[in-house]
């Protein structure tokens, strides 16, 4: 067989952050298939040292511009755990609503702007404004809704200000504006499902261990709870290090992770594989329509899982706003008394489970910090998937460098990696 393929992507596009793909196939033999993260490191864990507890969340929010709410929430919860602070019920609901806003915004951005162009054969969403105006209109409405929720609850679309140690600054005044837009979004999501039915996902399966939060009986998990894997590992939140097992790879500025196998996956697909039963029936129905049932081992199905989650979130947000309507004068903040202590928090960022871990001294200043990012956990798995993908497809008839490059790129994008996040 005379198959020679050579793919070299320097700074993959339509992903957050900087990563490279190298594939070399010589005479049908795989010589190399690499996914390398080359993002500039920022040393957040070092910068956190010595900082006052009130700086932790605003600082770690800047780890990532796309999932700044997740970082904020993870950070706040870690601090609250260290100080033994219990936030009021209304604050917990508001935080989950803000989280939903972020997930919706992030998933919509990924599905329409980063992933969809591959399926519609264009380099970006910009040309779609002419060729598929209705798709773009839906995309903008959904993303806009996510941003609006963030804005109303968090005070800003990116890097929230109202979410603070002890709860949420105040009951937002803009809540009543949201339900009508959410109702509209349900229709837009239905149209999106129809669109996704027309997309051909690559037929690729590699058995994988999926890690996520585990539902604690109160619905699909987003903020804090036990940790679970499809290989049967179950750990407490505070025991996260046993779940992540970070190590440094020479080619990457991002660390890599392993658990039962030499890599594992986190993200929408992992959440869904572990917590399918907790999805709202409307979301389960959509999953069924799109052929997604747990446990699914096709990484490209992560796109579908995101869409299913959007449906879940839209319905859930309406419920949360309903609950809040009866809590107009309920407290949203408790007084915070700092003390020496240690806290861990796990939050499901849009692209997977995110951990923050701080140690505080008696002055309320950080002495040690650790953040483990979803994409850090995914990177090794992407790398392994890519090897398998190339092995499966390299020998396919008519395979060209371009097609292989597209396939590999689509694979990385399917994970919706947050690369600068992973190199924080």
């Amino acid at each position, binding site marked *: 067989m005379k198959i020679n393929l050579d793919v070299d992507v320097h700074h993959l596009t339509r*992903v957050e952050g900087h990563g490279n793909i190298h594939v070399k196939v010589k005479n049908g033999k795989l010589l190399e298939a690499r996914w390398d993260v080359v993002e500039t490191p920022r040393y957040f864990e070092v910068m956190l040292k010595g900082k006052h507890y009130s700086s932790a969340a605003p600082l770690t929010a800047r780890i990532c511009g796309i999932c700044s709410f997740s970082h904020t929430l993870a950070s706040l919860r870690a601090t609250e755990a260290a100080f033994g602070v219990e936030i009021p019920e209304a604050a917990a609901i508001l935080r989950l609503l803000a989280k939903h806003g972020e997930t919706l915004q992030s998933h919509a951005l990924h599905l329409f702007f980063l992933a969809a162009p591959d399926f519609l054969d264009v380099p*970006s969403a910009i040309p779609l*404004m002419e060729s598929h105006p209705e798709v773009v209109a839906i995309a903008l409405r959904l993303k806009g809704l996510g941003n609006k929720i963030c804005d109303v609850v968090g*005070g*800003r679309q990116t890097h929230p200000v109202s979410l603070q140690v002890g709860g949420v600054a105040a009951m937002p005044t803009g809540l009543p504006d949201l339900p009508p837009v959410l109702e509209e979004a349900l229709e837009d999501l239905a149209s999106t499902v129809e669109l996704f039915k027309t997309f051909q996902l690559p037929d690729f399966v590699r058995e994988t261990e999926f890690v996520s939060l585990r539902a604690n009986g109160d619905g699909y998990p987003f903020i804090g709870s036990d940790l679970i894997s499809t290989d049967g590992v179950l750990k407490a939140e505070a025991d996260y290090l046993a779940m992540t097992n970070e190590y440094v790879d020479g080619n990457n500025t991002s660390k890599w992770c392993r658990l039962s196998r030499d890599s594992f996956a986190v993200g929408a697909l992992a959440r869904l594989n572990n917590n399918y039963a907790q999805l709202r029936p409307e979301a389960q129905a959509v999953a069924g329509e799109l052929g997604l049932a747990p446990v699914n081992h096709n990484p490209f199905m992560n796109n579908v899982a995101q869409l299913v989650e959007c449906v879940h979130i839209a319905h859930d947000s309406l419920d949360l706003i309903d609950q809040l309507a009866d809590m107009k004068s309920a407290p949203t903040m408790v007084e915070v008394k700092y003390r020496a202590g240690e806290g861990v928090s796990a939050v499901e960022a849009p692209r997977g489970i995110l951990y923050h871990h701080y140690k505080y001294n008696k002055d309320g200043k950080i002495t040690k910090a650790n953040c483990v990012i979803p994409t850090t956990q995914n990177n090794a798995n992407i790398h392994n998937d890519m090897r398998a993908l190339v092995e499966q497809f390299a020998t396919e008839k008519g395979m060209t460098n371009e097609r292989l490059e597209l396939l590999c790129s689509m694979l990385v994008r399917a994970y919706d990696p947050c690369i*600068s996040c992973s190199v924080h």
Partner: protein
Amino acid sequence: MKYLGIDPIKPKIAVFDFTSCEGCELQLANKEDTLAGFLNAVEIVTFREISSAASDDYDIAFIEGAISRSDEITRLMDIRKKAKVLVALGSCACFGGVNRMKNAYDLNQANREVYGKIAKETLPVRSVKEIVPVDLEIHGCPVSKAEVERIVQHLVWDIPYTQPVYPVCFECKQRYATCSFDLGQLCLGPITRGGCGAPCPVGGLSCWGCRGPSEDPNYEEFFRIANEYGYGDDEIEERLNFFGGFEGVR
């Protein structure tokens, strides 16, 4: 899209990211209600975060992020050569942003702490203007898309743009907010450049100064006030250093 018989220039825009969270880039794709108009007014030729198309032929380069590695310096110098107008987008590009706090630590030790034995290359954080000349700065962490729109309009019509010179307090007051100082928070509003609409004090967190100093700020009085309200020099220092815009004012 003619205006009063005048054809706008449709500038070719390229967006590049360096050491940052890519939040400012993300803002470019936000403000969904006017996004179509925004994307129509310019020709985006390179924007890695949302597009696979790329070209070296551009008029305006938006630079997001601080500079903290040697390859970034080379890349930036190359962009400067190609761009007619170079815009620093966001506080990381303008001042180094939160990244600048890294400079207070020993980098070798930092490397050991994060990466153990396999150290990664890193340089002290610098802003874009510390490396190449910058034509226009858009402050903020993240930038406000409304302000970006305004600036892009000025670029599209090629007319000069003036930044607001007043401090954040002014807009904070216009939003009917209660002063953070009254609520027991240290606020940099009195010395920080306005234009953001004061989302932070209005949202319940005081202003942390992401947009850097306003024009002719009264530092002396501000420090006196902060002390008077009971904030120690350490606290003030930590806050001033947060976004890198106030380096050396104290």
